[in-house]
């Protein structure tokens, strides 16, 4: 099983949707939320995803397809 630390950035339209619940139902992925920030217009969720590499890749593609930006949790470091 692989683990990934990711940050999800939700557009306004998806802030009220149970996206993480659906992710765990559709794919064999265990999400573990560590931190979140939500404003009126955007949501930011930092979490650990655990699963087989193939499932993780499919799950992340699913999130991207919904319009959620999936980034490494630590961001880009200059």
């Amino acid at each position, binding site marked *: 099983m692989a683990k990934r630390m990711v940050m999800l950035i939700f557009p306004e339209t998806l802030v009220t949707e149970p996206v993480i619940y659906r992710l765990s139902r559709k794919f064999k992925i265990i999400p573990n939320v560590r931190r979140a920030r939500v404003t009126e217009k955007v949501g930011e969720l930092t979490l650990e995803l655990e699963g087989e590499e193939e499932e993780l890749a499919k799950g992340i593609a699913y999130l991207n397809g919904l319009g959620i930006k999936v980034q490494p949790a630590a*961001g880009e470091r200059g």
Partner: protein
Amino acid sequence: MVKVKGLKCRECSRPYPPAPLHVCEFCFGPLEVDYDYESLRGTLTRRSIEAGPPSIWRYRALLPIDGEPAVGVHCGMTPLVKARNLARALGMREVYVKNDTVNHPSFSFKDRVVAVAITRALEFDFTVVACASTGNLANSVAAHAAEGGLQSFVFMPADLEQGKVIGTLIYAPNLVAVEGNYDEVNRLCSEIADKYRWAFVNINIRPYYAEGSKTFGYEIAEQLGWRAPRHIVVPAAGGSLVTKIWKGLKEFERLGLLDGRCETRMHLAQAEGCGPIVTAIKENSEIVKPVKPKTIAKSLAIGNPADGYYAYKAVKASGGHGDHASDEEIVEGMKLLAGTEGIFSETAGGVTVAAAKRLIEQGRIPRDESLVLCITGNGLKTQEAVAPSLRVSLQIKPTLRSFDEAMASHGIEVSPKDPS
């Protein structure tokens, strides 16, 4: 003097030992060095700093190393130029340029962070240093690794400016050109950092590395006669520099080293083609939305800035603001700085000058208040950016007549030599 207490999570404040760690295992927040300021109060004085070497190491008590600096002993104490001509051009009363185009040894502010990071890496007994880089960091890591006798690996996007590639290769590192953007380079390096026991200066050594940027702020204050300016404009890529300059000034205030209080407003400068932090500042949103970079300012082309949130917080806490600069404005900014002060900055400097100009025009930086512009890298590294807009003034045959004719045809007037 025991001054480093350890590391602390910037999000949940959980403490960690002073080890090569960078992420909180609980909340995934970034770790930061935590100091025992009380032990420094009274022992760290203006006089003790002034008695130190003319380099960043005069502030060693506020840097996270245990022993002597191992590399970069001449880094820092770059000029703070009183920019009278630039001030006139911008319609300002008092402008200074903190000129890290001449930093030692690789001509950018990155020498500050790398000197600290590699010294710390040696204290942790690493034998290989590495980095993901947009260019300046690559130059600096390769140079300092050469000085320290360390093996180095530098990962860069394959499309970087030739000046930065050559300026890295000359120090004989293992340069890995990655066919991808900086985002992809960064992801790859995170995976490599997990696999090999290397000191990635901007990944697992990042808490120590980032502290080196505080010296940019310390020097500004000391060179202004132990006072903080009213405004500072800082360019941003990952967003760390502005947070550390702010932290440095607040530390000086806390330790009683400043005349008066630190009432500096920190302003951020980013390119229009990659300005996610400035966009967040303008929208008053503490969530920084990633972007795909498209700008000539490649040293600032970080679309998902690691310290974006903290940069936002520092700017807002100080009462500052931010603005973008178009590619055209960036080139004009570089030319303005060079043409008024004789300082050739890289594209990031053009971003800083152009954003400052906008902020002055908006009244966010009042014309009668003091302003410091942070110029972070040398223009000789990014000549491609300005080359198309520059041309030779006159081309002539090697005769006086040809010269006089060319002068006349271009309408250039000079005073003839005094016959007496």
